[in-house]
């Protein structure tokens, strides 16, 4: 179940099937992102794909010596663009791949536009999501809900993304959802609807344990995203922002031009692949190793290249050196910026208090620490607001809740209205009333003993004591202990019954 590999296989298949010759890859805005997450430019160049074009680009020239591989989402606009394209074909032959289910009528209108018989292939390849890591994908949707209800457009996009995911992994799952969330149920129903409708597509080899699609709502755990993280990828994402593996470094003071935007992809950056889940301290030492390695491999500047052999060695090592130099300077810059931000924003101290708010139940100490940090001028308004949000979520119903006082402190600190509003918003979003489960005070005996034992052992690392609620949920799921009254199955719990065509 490697999503990166799944998409990559689709793309490779497309290119392979088009045979030899110069090729152009015709994409839309979204598929461009999808492809760029799994393939590097040089990789795809080696497969004779030399041009990348947007189907909506007006500035395309007629190049009949190119084969076109179209990888498009089957949206209305794309179909229209494609119809226009086929009426006046710019390339010699078209291989059309759609990232999701296309309607029969759309196929018909495409066929009728292809008067010159340039289309050689029309297929659905379900790479309709952004594969971030082998086990993680995204649909890059910002704001999928209005209030507690789905934005209809986003609901349909999410459904398409999920069904494409299932198809690309060849899984026909049972669906469970979080009972407390209406949105989760709605999405589950939509996915189920598609599975029922396209039952022919979902005819996969049955496995002994049927795959499971568990739909969760973030409102069940509003805490985790509010915490500062200390692993490499998470830190980059939190502090610098990752957008389709790209990191914008243009705000970094004194950044050189070619490092304004860097790509961090575990697919072709070994160092990143090995370190993305390690914590900041470990990265520090690893990056040092990397640099030592680099120093060793670096051609010796002082050493004169005297003999032919020297020169040969230089030339032979050169590309490797070049590649390494790129990797080194990239990671050094990124880690350097991270460490600058950490000290500038006083994040170590902030994080400690955040963890305390998330994991411990000592109200007075927590309050005191939050108050102290709010006075600290180095703590940004964003971090300050987050601290108060965490406090508000945890001690929402505490008898001596002093949220109003903290809000005053925020105002005094000069935190803008925009951030201050978030405090009440987050409580409304993920407060006790909404949560299906209790994040802070475990109810069952096992969890209590666990916490007790944890308390006895002491904390290993104050910055990483918090464990996301998701961890528990998945743990329960794997052990078969996930409660059906909180996470019910959608429809009858055996899938077979639902899948038989009526």
């Amino acid at each position, binding site marked *: 179940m490697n999503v990166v590999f799944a998409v990559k296989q689709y793309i490779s298949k497309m290119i392979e099937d088009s045979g030899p010759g110069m090729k152009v890859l015709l994409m839309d805005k979204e598929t461009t992102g999808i492809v760029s997450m799994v393939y590097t430019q040089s990789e795809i160049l080696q497969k004779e794909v030399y041009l990348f074009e947007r189907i909506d680009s007006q500035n395309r020239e007629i190049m009949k010596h190119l084969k076109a591989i179209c990888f498009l989402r089957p949206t209305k606009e794309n179909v229209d663009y494609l119809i226009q394209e086929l009426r006046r074909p710019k390339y010699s032959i078209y291989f059309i791949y759609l990232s999701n289910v296309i309607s029969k009528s759309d196929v018909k209108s495409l*066929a*009728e536009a292809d008067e010159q018989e340039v289309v050689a292939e029309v297929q659905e390849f379900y790479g309709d999501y952004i594969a971030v890591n082998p086990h993680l994908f995204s649909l890059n949707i910002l704001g999928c809900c209005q209030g507690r209800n789905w934005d209809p457009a986003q609901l349909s996009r999410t459904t398409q993304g999920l069904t494409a995911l299932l198809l690309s992994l060849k899984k026909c799952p049972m669906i469970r959802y979080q009972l407390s969330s209406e949105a989760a149920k709605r999405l589950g129903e939509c996915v189920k609807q598609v599975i029922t409708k396209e039952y022919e597509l979902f005819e996969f080899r049955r496995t002994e344990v049927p795959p499971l699609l568990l739909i969760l709502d973030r409102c069940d755990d509003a805490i985790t995203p509010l915490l500062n993280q200390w692993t490499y990828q998470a830190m980059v994402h939190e502090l610098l922002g990752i957008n389709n593996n790209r990191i914008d470094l243009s705000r970094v003071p004194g950044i050189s031009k070619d490092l304004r935007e860097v790509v961090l992809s575990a697919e072709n950056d070994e160092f990143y692949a090995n370190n993305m889940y390690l914590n900041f301290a470990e990265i520090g030492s690893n990056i040092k190793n990397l640099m030592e390695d680099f120093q060793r491999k670096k051609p010796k500047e002082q050493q004169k290249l005297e003999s032919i052999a020297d020169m040969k060695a230089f030339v032979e090592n050169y590309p490797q050196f070049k590649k390494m130099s790129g990797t080194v300077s990239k990671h050094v810059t990124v880690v350097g910026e991270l460490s600058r931000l950490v000290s500038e924003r006083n994040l170590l101290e902030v994080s400690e208090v955040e963890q305390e708010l998330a994991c411990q139940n000592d109200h007075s100490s927590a309050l005191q620490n939050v108050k102290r940090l709010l006075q600290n001028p180095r703590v940004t308004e964003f971090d300050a607001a987050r601290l108060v949000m965490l406090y508000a979520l945890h001690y929402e119903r505490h008898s001596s809740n002093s949220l109003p006082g903290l809000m005053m402190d925020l105002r005094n600190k000069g935190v803008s209205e925009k951030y201050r509003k978030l405090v009440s918003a987050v409580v409304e979003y993920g407060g006790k009333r909404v949560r299906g489960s209790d994040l802070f005070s475990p109810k069952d005996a096992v969890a209590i003993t666990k916490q007790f034992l944890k308390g006895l052992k002491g904390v290993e690392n104050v910055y990483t004591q918090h464990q996301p609620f998701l961890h528990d949920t998945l743990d329960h799921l794997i052990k078969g202990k996930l409660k059906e009254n909180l996470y019910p199955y959608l429809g009858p719990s055996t899938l077979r019954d639902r899948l038989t065509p009526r």
Partner: protein
Amino acid sequence: MASLDDPGEVREGFLCPLCLKDLQSFYQLQSHYEEEHSGEDRDVKGQIKSLVQKAKKAKNRLLKREGDDRAESGTQGYESFSYGGVDPYMWEPQELGAVRSHLSDFKKHRAARIDHYVVEVNKLIIRLEKLTAFDRTNTESAKIRAIEKSVVPWVNDQDVPFCPDCGNKFNIRNRRHHCRLCGSIMCKKCMELISLPLANKLTSASKDSLSTHTSPSQSPNSVHGSRRGSISSMSSVSSVLDEKDDDRIRCCTHCKDTLLKREQQIDEKEHTPDIVKLYEKLRLCMEKVDQKAPEYIRMAASLNAGETTYSLEHASDLRVEVQKVYELIDALSKKILTLGLNQDPPPHPNTLRLQRMIRYSATLFVQEKLLGLMSLPTKEQFEELKKKRKQEMERKRILERQAALEAQRRLEERRSDLASRAANGEVVSLRGGPAPLRKAEGWLPLSGSQGQGEDSDPLLQQIHNITSFIRQAKAAGRTDEVRTLQENLRQLQDEYDQQQTEKAIEMSRKQAEEEDLQREQLQMLREREWEREREQFQAASLHTRTRSLDFREIRSFHLEPGREPRTHFAHVLDLGSSPAQSSAAPKSPSPSSALEPISVWSGPQALGQEFFPQSTMSQQNEVPSLNLFDEEDLSSPTAEGTTSPLAAEPSFGPSAHILKEYNPFEEEEAVGNPFTNPDSPAPNPFEEEDEHPHQRPSSPPVPGNPFEEATCTNPFEMDSDSGPESEEPIEEELLLQQIDNIKAYIFDAKQCGRLDEVEVLTENLRELKRTLAKQKGGTD
């Protein structure tokens, strides 16, 4: 695909990593690097330094709270973590995701549309052909009109009051015009004209799809293009005077459109742009490189190792060839890059982008592949390498031979030690203890003289003992013991098999050597010399090949010396030389001689001869020296060349390999034959035996509880349990069994067509038979 969106950023070529200056070649880059950057303390370095400090600081801060164990896990993580514990390579293999094809649907819909379209186009072209079939210029306009009207019925003027295209009303000024191709009506403005060359082109192209252009239609584009540009002005002038167009055919925009599309298709079919031609050449070159480069790398690697498999000249030729292809790739891609750059309307940016990308990928290709091309040694270097390798081989050979001899000597010592011990009655005195045990088992016959007892392998005794223990243990339900014992048994069996093979090899080798000796006596010195040279050559060449660990090579090498002398032996027999005949005579009664006339020479049974001179000596042909090892040791340096590989290889390499070869069969039959199961490599039991013989008297086994004894890891402590006098007949039995087994293997191997195995097995069979015969002779 970092810069998928803006490939303009992509820079290619030999860029300096520090200043990004593009240098045209490796050498320029190199010299540039040397000149510009040799002294600089690099920015990167400085940056790195400050970062290390920062990272360290941060780390320390974190570590303060974490404790040391975290740090350790961190350093481990650098090595072992991939995806932070998520290693997708550990996941189950993943096939291509689901796909669904709409092609057939698509084609169905398209076919319907295309049929319509094609019919339409063909109709127009047929009409066009009719319209151009006569000489227009020399025909009266009235007649033309008549013909034109006959081609397609014209629409009635009265039916069309307005121009269907622009909607203008027809009147005296704005007259109706008929399309000659479809008969419809349009106004002057909307009317289009088709020039004769274009018409010709369209009709001729559809007539024969091969479409060899005739000269008038060679440049229809330009003619047609220029006319088109002036259509309006021309027609406006002419229209006033005369409506007749000599060389043009009136038609409506729709028909014209259709025909133009058709023209475009024809053009595309024939026209291949320069870039395509160049690109095809480029791809051909790349394919060539993909073909040749691995071959060259193989050669270069071999040559650099000093091997003589490939010739240096050939390799350097190939190198030059490959390099030329690289140059060609470079040149071609450069040409593609600059294609059309100097044209007046500069090419479309996308064309340029395409060219840049092709060049970039070509550069990547060259960089990746060319740098993998290792250099060749120069002639002098090569000679040196060869010499070095030869020396090394020689040294290895000597070392191996020494080791072989050493091992042999040790083996002998041990055996004689054992023999003497047996003779001293050490074992006999111990026999009182285990006797009841054996009796209880009742399967070990107590017969045979002590002298013959020595003859049998101590390993076999051991094996028998252990099997009996296993049986007892099983009977007693001690599964733990059974398991341990079985493990021991297997090890023993391995060892025994190995020993047998070694013995077999040793014997065949000696046989060959003896034959050599024999030959020496019989043949002229010159002939012998020639023979030696030949063998030496053979041995040497084979020896180099054994480096590859190819089993077949080794075996053929191992068998070679045996086979080779055989022919000579036959030759010798032909000559009727007396020593050969006399030596053959005593052997004839042995059972093996019928199958294996060559076993004449196995009389001296190399190893056996050493241990039991008294029993075998009488039968021996006296000619071969009794102690072959002495012979070998004393052999002259010239002889060493021939013997050393023989001595070295068979005792190590082939035996192990042959054992491996056995495996599948042995395991198949393991149930039936517990004595041949070389499953796991046995620890050398002889060494253990060496350590323990003195303990034996002090640790007599407790007869009442054999299981405790059995669990001990050293099976040789049990050695004392079995009386040596019982061994001889068992071994005979075993040998027979073994022979049967091997026969079965040979049959099986033949059935499967594994000829090399058959060979090895036959060799083994011979060996066993010989041993059996000898033993029988001994008991008799």
